[in-house]
């Protein structure tokens, strides 16, 4: 393959494969890479065997059956370039999912033909909806006993309210599954050969003809909503496959239609038609609107996908690979060439691009350049994931993905000196890769603290430390990351004065501290007449800001405050930067508690799904945990209950829900918001804080 840039944008597909953990995503990805590489190998006669290519490079992922990292793999099908962005399936890794969803233009939603739409499919679907990702569905595992793709299609309609329509029907199910009937061409596709690579196209078996005709009618009815030409052609009875494809594509692009394909990745059935569908129906980069923020005008701008425009690209994933440290970028406009210099918009740092590459399933290809719409890997670029690179001709950044504050923390201790050095390396790497993962030193206890978005999130990093960095650590009990703020406005008037020989310290400030839903910290000065000299105003701001790290009420970080400095006084000799910082800290200490402080706790959106007969039991477990039920959904004997529950109440919930429902319910959870903690929780936190303070002062 050429090392030049791909500039035919209509030949690029950036896609994700989204799925529930056990629906066979990894197998499907492997098969896709196998078939595409195979074709590739035949063309280039490289004699390379693509078998065993895998997206899940990390040992741990395979063991747990979940995908953590989002690598991007390049492959080709039918003259098209497909970049497969691996989307993590587990909801605990929200930021990684959101990053991946951000850079892809379309997705394959994989569902298990036995289990159907499960609570995790619902979470994944929710995320895709948030980013307006057009999707096609693949009902996998049609060879399993109990397989029923028609039922899964119904569930897509009912549970996820997709306008799902079957584009195929299965030829045989369970052990008899041999292939599919293509309802567009009205042909039977039988997959033969050792790896299903031979497709024999046959007439529809007589016993399936009636069903195929009926399903085709349903499909045409649904699809014709997106094309008047097709509707007319149906009336005139001269429907062509092109008209159908065009109509399906239109429906998919607007997210108003989800065509459903089926097969068994494991048994090598149905994968090639799915690839055809990716190329046919999912959007190319020009059909998706992406916006950046022009930092000069502070307004959002639509990126133009032109290779000749100033460069805007987003680093969405850092990865340590056998080839060294890689930074995956999506180019939104402009061209990246080897030897170019780029600017990291966040740091202002200029850097030279030494090497860029396309990552194939298990090998890497050096390339000279890459253009808008493409996804490539860069070598030796120092940055954090989420950074924007430009060529310096434009001052713009890809709109930042919202990074939530960590909600849970854990103390870790290396078991020996060697582990200690390795742990430091590991933490440095992880914090760069994942902005929701934080690590810091607790100055009081001298413990290393790691913080993140959920119990599993932290567990995975602890295990990665052990496996990838040989850093074995012991962990403390997980702790909820509370916050605090005030409810009422407080006027303050404070003088900091010290006279201990030599030059003294003097600073007097007066103003208001008030609750502020808009931002975590805000400071404004209304001082007139130079009562507080302007050089000290920033010292006051600095002083207040330093107070936000820990509140006086329960000893947790303070949020949602606005400080207004209105007046004050200074002394010609004794006032200093330090004196005014001290004045701000003193004012905060003295007045903060008068503002009716409250504790805030992280609240999670929890979705529990199980058989309807357990609805009462599930509700009870949620209510006992101070849950606020948002809603219930009932369908086909299953109920799903969505509730907002404080994180502190969710420890050990997996065991509780299992025993309450005889193991028949499962749940997912993601961070929703910070909410006011009830008085009894706040009191307990306050007692602990006061004890700690007393112990500290002894």
């Amino acid at each position: 393959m050429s090392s030049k840039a791909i500039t035919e944008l209509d030949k690029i597909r950036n896609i994700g494969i989204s799925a529930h953990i056990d629906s066979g995503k990894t197998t499907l990805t492997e098969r896709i890479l196998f078939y595409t590489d195979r074709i590739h190998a035949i063309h280039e006669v490289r004699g390379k065997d693509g078998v065993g290519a895998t997206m899940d490079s990390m040992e741990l992922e395979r063991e747990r059956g979940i995908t953590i990292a989002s690598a991007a793999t390049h492959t080709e099908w039918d003259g098209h370039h497909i970049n497969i962005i691996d989307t993590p399936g587990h909801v605990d890794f929200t930021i990684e999912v959101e990053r991946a969803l951000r850079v892809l233009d379309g997705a394959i939603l994989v569902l298990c033909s036995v289990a159907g739409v499960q609570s995790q499919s619902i979470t994944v679907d929710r995320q895709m909806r948030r980013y307006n990702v057009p999707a096609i569905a693949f009902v996998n595992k049609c060879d399993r006993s109990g397989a029923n793709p028609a039922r899964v299609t119904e569930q897509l309609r009912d549970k996820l309210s997709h306008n799902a329509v079957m584009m195929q029907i299965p030829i045989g199910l369970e052990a008899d599954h041999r292939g599919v009937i293509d309802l567009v061409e009205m042909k039977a596709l039988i997959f033969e050969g050792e790896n299903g690579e031979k497709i024999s196209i046959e007439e529809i078996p007589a016993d399936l003809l009636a069903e195929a005709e009926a399903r085709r009618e349903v499909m045409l009815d649904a699809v014709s909503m997106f094309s008047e030409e097709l509707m007319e052609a149906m009336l005139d009875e001269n429907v062509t496959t092109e008209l159908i494809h065009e109509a399906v594509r239109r429906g998919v692009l607007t997210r108003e239609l989800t065509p459903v394909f089926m097969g068994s990745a494991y048994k090598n059935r149905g994968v090639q038609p799915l690839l055809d569908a990716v190329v046919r129906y999912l959007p190319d980069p020009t059909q998706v609107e992406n916006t950046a923020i022009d930092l000069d005008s502070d307004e959002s701008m639509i990126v133009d996908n032109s290779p000749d425009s100033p460069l805007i690209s987003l680093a969405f994933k850092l990865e340590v690979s056998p080839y060294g440290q890689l930074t995956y970028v999506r180019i939104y406009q402009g061209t990246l060439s080897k030897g170019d210099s780029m600017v990291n918009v966040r740091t202002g740092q200029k850097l030279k691009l030494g090497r860029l590459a396309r990552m194939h399933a298990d090998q890497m290809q050096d390339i000279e350049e890459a253009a808008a719409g493409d996804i490539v890997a860069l070598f030796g670029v120092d940055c954090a994931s989420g950074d924007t690179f430009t060529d310096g001709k434009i001052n713009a950044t890809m709109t930042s993905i919202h990074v939530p504050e960590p909600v849970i923390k854990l103390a870790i201790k290396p078991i020996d000196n060697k582990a200690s050095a390795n742990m430091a390396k590991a933490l440095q790497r992880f914090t760069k890769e994942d902005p929701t993962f934080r690590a810091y030193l607790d100055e009081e206890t001298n413990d290393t603290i790691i913080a993140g978005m959920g119990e599993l999130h932290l567990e995975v990093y602890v295990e990665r430390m052990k496996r990838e960095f040989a850093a074995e650590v012991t962990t403390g009990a997980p702790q909820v990351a509370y916050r605090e703020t005030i409810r009422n406005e407080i006027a303050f008037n404070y003088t900091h004065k010290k006279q201990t020989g030599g030059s003294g310290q003097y600073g007097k400030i007066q103003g208001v501290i008030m609750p502020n839903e808009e931002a975590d910290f805000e400071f404004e000065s209304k001082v007139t007449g130079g009562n507080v000299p302007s050089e000290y105003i920033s010292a006051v701001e600095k002083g207040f800001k330093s107070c936000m790290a820990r509140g006086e009420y329960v000893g947790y970080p303070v949020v949602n405050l606005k400080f207004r400095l209105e007046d004050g006084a200074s002394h010609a000799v004794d006032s200093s930067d330090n004196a005014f910082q001290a004045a701000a800290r003193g004012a905060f200490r003295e007045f903060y508690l008068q503002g009716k402080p409250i504790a805030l706790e992280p609240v999670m959106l929890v979705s529990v799904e199980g058989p309807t007969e357990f609805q009462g039991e599930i509700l009870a477990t949620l209510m006992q945990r101070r849950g606020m039920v948002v809603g219930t959904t009932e369908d086909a004997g299953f109920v799903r209950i969505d509730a907002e529950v404080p994180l502190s109440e969710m420890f050990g919930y997996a065991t509780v829900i299992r025993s309450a429902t005889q193991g028949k319910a499962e749940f997912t959870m993601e961070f929703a918001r910070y909410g006011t903690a009830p008085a009894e929780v706040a009191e307990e936190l306050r007692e602990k804080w006061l004890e700690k303070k007393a112990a500290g002062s002894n």
Partner: protein
Amino acid sequence: MYRKEINERSPLRVFERSIQGGLGKGNVGVVMSRAGAGKTAFLVDIALDELMRERKVLHINIDNPVEKVREFYDEIFSDLAESQKLERRERAHLVVERNRLIQTYGRESFSMDKVKEGIRLASEHMSFDPEVIIVDGWPKFSKATDDDVQELVNLAKQYNCEVWVSARARREDERDDRGIPTKISRFDSMLSVVINLEPHSDHIRLQIVKDHDNKDAASLFLELDPRTLLVKWR
């Protein structure tokens, strides 16, 4: 404005007065329109108005998942908060969420017995007793029997609450002299209020086509803004 003021100044107060002080407990009201003319939006407007004064609303939806219904509320709430300059927005939002329960059903799974079981569980485990029940996407009036509609009335009576139901009208529907499709008016004696939403090029007009036993339903000078989906003065 504060939450309470928004309530007091809402155009829905006019709507309430025009139907003799409201739908009334134990009664069933119908909101009808052609597809996509804003039935759900108007039902959510009614619900939000109730929720803002801390009355409990059970929102039943057939066909849409919970989060879609919730998104609908969030969108209309945020338009309302924006246009009315609502103070303490987050708290008002929490009041809305605390007093609202969404129950959704797959088309095939919906039945009045399930709704009742849902209400029983909500009452038992959550002390949630609805004062208003919204039934959005109720299976077609055209196929309904007297018993089906009677079930709605029973629901309103049994729980002593107001029940609002959506109904889809079609252009080709046969209508009575008030303009009510006969598929709905055949249940006239069981329905207390019927509202029609009539789409125009830039607004959606609200019409009271049945007002309890009142022979002359009042003309309503209200409409739905198709952009914000809020009720406003005409």
